């Protein structure tokens, strides 16, 4: 346990000892802010119109009409950003030879992987934390419900965890960070748009493909519905990704 923490701590420190963490967190906050402002602007106009013409529902739902699209957009931004966080995890250790230190220290392979996973997840959590002021503003001027927002953030965290587990796996394949980052990005993008394919197949294919699509499962979280089905999907996705990473690191050792 303390070994996992030692590795996670080291990973986090290394993000912050270079501009990486600051650039990633800063730009994520800026993009989040842009989407937030744009959607808020649209939302305000819409609610004013509703008030003027007295038609449709008499009130607007801030959770559904503002927070949901903002979180959905954040999930897409995360898809772009997370490959940049995970690409160096293994690739850099392999390139610089520090992987020899880790693998010859009295810690297990699993501890190294979990350490790296939680390190990356820690940075991602900080990214999400930086967006809380936007939400706090909503509480000051409006009356959103808290629990759907928390569920939404949980969804972002779980989805990010899945992205990170894929990123770790791909980073363990190569010594080249750029290659790792690009392949991770392509894979994540493909998993996102996978449900587009569902229109080509029959009902069974459709169900399978849209189940696999990683972002499909986020929709329920975004509207604030906590469904164990989706939680289990993400948790098993993360476990599987980390398991494959362990196998990949191990097989590298055998092949030399």
């Amino acid at each position, binding site marked *: 346990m*303390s*070994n996992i923490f*030692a*590795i996670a701590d*080291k990973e986090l*420190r*290394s993000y912050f*000892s*270079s501009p990486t963490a600051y650039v990633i967190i800063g730009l994520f906050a800026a993009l989040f802010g842009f989407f937030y402002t744009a959607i808020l602007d649209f939302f305000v106009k819409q609610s004013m119109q509703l008030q003027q013409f007295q038609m449709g529902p008499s009130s607007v739902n801030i959770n559904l009409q503002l927070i949901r699209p903002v979180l959905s957009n954040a999930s897409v931004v995360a898809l772009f950003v997370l490959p940049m966080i995970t690409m160096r995890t293994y690739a850099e250790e392999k390139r*610089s*030879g*520090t*992987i*020899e*230190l*880790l*693998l*010859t*220290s*009295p*810690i*297990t392979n699993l501890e190294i992987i979990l350490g790296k996973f939680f390190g990356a997840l820690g940075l991602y959590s900080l990214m999400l934390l930086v967006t809380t002021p936007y939400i706090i503003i909503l509480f000051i001027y409006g009356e959103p419900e808290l629990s759907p927002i928390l569920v939404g953030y949980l969804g972002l965290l779980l989805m990010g965890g899945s992205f990170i587990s894929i990123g770790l796996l791909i980073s363990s394949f190569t010594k080249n960070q750029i290659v790792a980052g690009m392949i991770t990005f392509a894979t994540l993008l493909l998993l996102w748009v996978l449900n587009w394919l569902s229109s080509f197949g029959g009902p069974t294919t459709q169900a399978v493909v849209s189940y696999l699509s990683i972002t499909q499962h986020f929709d329920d979280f975004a509207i604030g519905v906590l469904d164990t089905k989706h939680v289990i999907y993400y948790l098993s996705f993360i476990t599987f990704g980390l398991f494959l990473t362990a196998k990949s690191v191990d097989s590298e*050792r*055998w*092949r*030399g």
Partner: protein
Amino acid sequence: MIEVKNVTKRYGRVTAVQDISFKVKRGEILGFLGPNGAGKTTTMRILTGYMPATKGRAMIAGFDVFEQPIEAKRRTGYLPETPPLYPEMTVREYLQFVARIKGIPRSERTGRISGAMEQVRLNEMADRHCGKLSKGYRQRVGLAQTLLHDPEVLILDEPTAGLDPNQIIQTRELITNLAGDHTIILSTHILPEVSQTCQRVVIINNGRLVAEDTPENLTHRLRGAEIIYLKIATHDDPVPALSRMPGVQRASVSKRNEGIIECEVESMTGEDIRRNLAQAVIAAGWGLLELRQLRMSLEEVFLHLTTNESNAETPDIPEDEEREIPTSNTKESLDEVVHE
């Protein structure tokens, strides 16, 4: 303390190490010698648990590195060829991290870290970033890292590579001082290093063990008759007189320069003729300028062993482009040397 038993390692079709066995006793320094690409690093990586062997066993302090990796790794300090440093950490931060993953209790960490920095004379660099250190200091940080958890076994892959002569001497001294409490394997292709620091030598070539002995025995085994170099001041021809001496097989002049003659005297096997030779020179009224035994250096032993091996056994070994096989032809058979 360290035991390698019939270890073989294959990378795909390429055999990097073939059936190597050796033992190292507690407190001993073993020199691991071989040309580039001979399999030194592979063997060390197997010993440290970095990679498993295809066949065979490696034991550290009684623990199999494959079956009980954590126990074995806890007792091993490993310095890879390039010190495994994180450039963005300072030396102290780096050592703190290593101390944590080596399982040193929190209360002991500070003491151990300053102790290790003391040992490798690193104190003035404690707050520098690892990435900004010179090669010599990186090597020292790497060495400090291996000493942190006070392991019983130290495995050092070319610890003096890339250091300046002063640093090399310091590192050697450090290694020699460590020998008492630690069992050390050190690989190198610098031969004087081995004769200076190691009690025993293992020579490998093309993934096979070609010799294992003390540096003295290795040089001795290959030396048939002893040759004595003699430098005298005279205008006479010393050869007839020297040849007639008892115990002398052959004498020849190698260089003649205005009354100074350099000659080589070959003795019968096993006879020390230095004393008689000196007396004879004085008795003849020549000026004795220099007299010394010409030893076959470890370098020659090494060349001898590795060259023969590659000539005799290449067909058995799969092609490996990375290997540089010395190709000069020497006539002696390897078997004479190894199985004498």
